[in-house]
């Protein structure tokens, strides 16, 4: 076990030494991987910021529960109690039919027409705010309230939520597609780099095989190389996006102050950043593994 660990440590330090021996080549390699990762990462960061913004500045998700015209005041109060008791309802407000009529008059200027009506055609209503903003929650609440007695109709003001949801889902989809394409690019870059390394180290590999090296021993440094350049590329992508955000936030400040909004794009949080590094390392390792499998598996000294 300790010798196994020592072998891994040696392969790892050997790989780092190899990277440092050709700093320019390593740097360019890492830059290529970093750029490939920075593109989907950038989109992802923008999307995450948009989502945050949408959550902060959109109106609360509301439902209007209209009572049947024959409902009495007591029945309206009972309904209100029931609404308040329902989980998923964060606030509720009673709008009596008279108040609704007044609002209609003052907002629309239809005084004359309303004055000509024989009575108040508007029903009493409860306006409630749902705790959840997603379309599914709102639809579920609507369906439930519709079944209650003395409820004539329930309106959901959830169209905007639905649209935003769809847009963000589309964005996530695009990011996923882009990330897949560029993950493939990362694997391809590592694959090729390792192929070249295997070609330049043919002598070493041959000698090592002849004097009793296992395939695992020969593969290990290449796999470490893939994982380390992948992780370094992920780090480079993180730094690129960090730089872009810093520049962008500087330019955004005057605009945001005009609108009185605290607009500011934020970077990935800690756990997402670590996930990024792991993901990049895994892709690099995978590319190296494919290359080693392809180019060492068939190779036998003679």
């Amino acid at each position, binding site marked *: 076990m300790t010798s196994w660990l020592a072998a891994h440590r040696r392969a790892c330090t050997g790989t780092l030494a190899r990277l440092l021996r050709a700093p320019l080549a390593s740097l360019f390699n890492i830059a290529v991987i970093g750029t490939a990762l920075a593109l989907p990462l950038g989109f992802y960061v923008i999307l995450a910021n948009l989502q945050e913004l949408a959550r902060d500045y959109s109106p609360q998700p509301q439902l209007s529960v209209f009572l049947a015209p024959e409902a009495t005041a007591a029945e309206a109060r009972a309904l209100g109690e029931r609404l308040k008791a329902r989980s998923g309802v964060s606030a509720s407000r009673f709008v009596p039919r008279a108040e609704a009529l007044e609002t209609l008059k003052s907002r629309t200027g239809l005084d004359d027409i309303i004055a000509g009506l024989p009575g108040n055609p508007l029903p009493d209503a409860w306006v409630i705010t749902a705790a959840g903003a997603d379309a599914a929650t709102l639809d579920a609440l609507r369906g439930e309230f519709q079944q209650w007695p003395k409820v004539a109709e329930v309106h959901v003001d959830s169209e905007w939520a639905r649209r935003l949801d769809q847009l963000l889902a589309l964005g996530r989809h695009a990011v996923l597609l882009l990330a897949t394409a560029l993950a493939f690019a990362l694997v391809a870059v590592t694959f090729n780099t390792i192929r070249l390394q295997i070609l330049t180290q043919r002598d070493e590999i041959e000698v*090592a095989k002849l*004097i009793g090296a296992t395939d695992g021993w020969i593969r290990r440094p290449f796999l470490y190389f893939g994982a380390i350049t992948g992780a370094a590329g992920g780090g480079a992508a993180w730094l690129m996006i960090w730089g872009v955000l810093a520049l962008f936030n500087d330019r955004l400040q005057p605009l945001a102050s005009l609108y009185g909004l605290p607009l500011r794009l934020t970077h990935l949080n800690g756990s997402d950043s670590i996930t990024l590094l792991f993901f990049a390392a895994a892709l690099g390792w995978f590319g190296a593994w494919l290359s080693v499998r392809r180019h060492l598996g068939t190779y036998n000294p003679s």
Partner: protein
Amino acid sequence: MSQIALSSVSKRYPGGHQALNGVSLAIEAGEMAFITGPSGAGKSTLLKLIAAIERPSAGSVVVNGQNVGTLRAQGIPFLRRNFGLVFQDHKLLFDRSVFDNVMLPLEITGFDRREGARRARAALDKVGLLHKEKARPITLSGGEQQRLCIARAIVHRPAILLADEPTGNLDAGYAADIGELFRDFNRVGVTVVLATHDMQLAARLQPRLIEIRSGRVHHD
């Protein structure tokens, strides 16, 4: 049981060249044997079969009780660790120092680094190259390169030393030095198998002589 046992071994290369044809021989632990014969007789092929670098087309090669011909691919590295291999073309790694070349077999077997360094220096001292441990192999003479190859072959203390034309390109003085090295290893119990046509060396060391002609044992 013999340490190395070949029975009715034939080797035909793809393309039809019949390198060995029905070779049977046994080499005991601690023996020194020279495999001689004209160029192209199959000496190198014989060594390659023993070291599992080639597989026999027919017959069996048994080393330390293991049948080399039927060994699984994963087992071959561990079989090879029984051998010290000395190549005619040295197969040194020119991108690293003399010392690091000798360290390679110990790194492969996961040897403790400090103990390994001690052993590598002992091996270099044995072949008279300790003062050049930091040099690059490319700066060594032909004889020194051959001795470096020997140091690498013995550093992990193998039971069997296989050498293919170890004195092939060397003048008589160097060849004699290297012959003495092999005699020393044999004296401490290492089985030494050499493929050579250097009869001067044979005359000096008085080993068992196995002569191969046209892929057959002509004289043992």
